[in-house]
């Protein structure tokens, strides 16, 4: 963000406001953690709070709100691949369900596979 001194001055209050919001959201996260909710609800609530906090940090502190398009496009691409990596376990599990385990042990009684001879 290439802001002028005047613009930056206006943002100071926002930064401290975001700090306050982040503190409140942290307190809520801890409170939810101590509630010992069922795991699926705990995941949803904790992720929603973490995403909100992440948006505040990225949007205001890293100035992503109003950042140049080239950075936003790079980040969009990164987010796509990030979720692809996160989904890999799900893809592997589904693969197992359809074609059998990918790393299944050899059936009992089958001949051991010999390692290729080194030259």
């Amino acid at each position, binding site marked *: 963000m290439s802001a002028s001194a005047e613009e930056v*001055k206006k943002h*100071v209050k926002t*930064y401290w406001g975001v700090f306050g919001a982040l503190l409140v959201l942290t307190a809520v996260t801890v409170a939810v953690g101590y509630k010992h909710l069922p795991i699926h609800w705990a995941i949803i609530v904790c992720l929603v709070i973490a995403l909100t906090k992440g948006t505040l940090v990225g949007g205001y502190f890293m100035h992503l709100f109003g950042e140049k398009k080239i950075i936003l496009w790079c980040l969009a691409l990164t987010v796509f691949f990030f979720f692809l*990596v996160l989904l*890999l376990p799900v893809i592997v599990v589904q693969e197992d369900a359809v074609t059998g385990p990918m790393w299944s042990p050899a059936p009992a009684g089958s001949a051991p596979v010999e390692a290729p001879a080194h030259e």
Partner: protein
Amino acid sequence: MDELIPYIYKPHPVTGITNGKFGTWLFLASEVMLFGALFSAYIMLRVGSESWPHGYQELHVAWAALNTVVLIFSSVTIVMAWVSLKLNKFTNFRIYMGLTLLCSLAFLAVKSVEYMDKFHHQHYPWTSNFFGIYFTLTGLHAIHIIGGIVVNAYLMGPGAKLWKTNPEQFTGRIECAGLYWHFVDLVWIFLFPTIYLL
């Protein structure tokens, strides 16, 4: 200098930002993938295991919550350090950068106490998958904190000489260091509930 390394403090005509800032964002994108792979490993280990302890049963939530507050505060202080330079207040910059460094050292101190407690209770990275991924994720994050401390200490100390000769370039460097520091904070924001609360 401009002929040797172009667009170090003037925006590049194509991207609209300095090369340093663009490079920092690309570096952060690679960091997202690094942590993404480890989060993916965490999900795979947790989903694939027959039993997995809740973080709050094995770890100290209060210490981690304290560290979250410390990191969030350091995010504000580093952005205020950048604001101070924009407003031409170098003394304020030193104060805010000093506070950022103090917070980062406090974070490491709390993390060390936490690790010592784990070792005291015979919990090591090889004890279980839970502790394996706990030490890997938090350890990698701590290494990033140490990297940030080195860069921020340099910019507050010897690196600050640049302010006298090229304030615009120095302000750009603080902005890039700030982006990295906010990223480290961002990672912790997701690590904290994932490891400690779920």
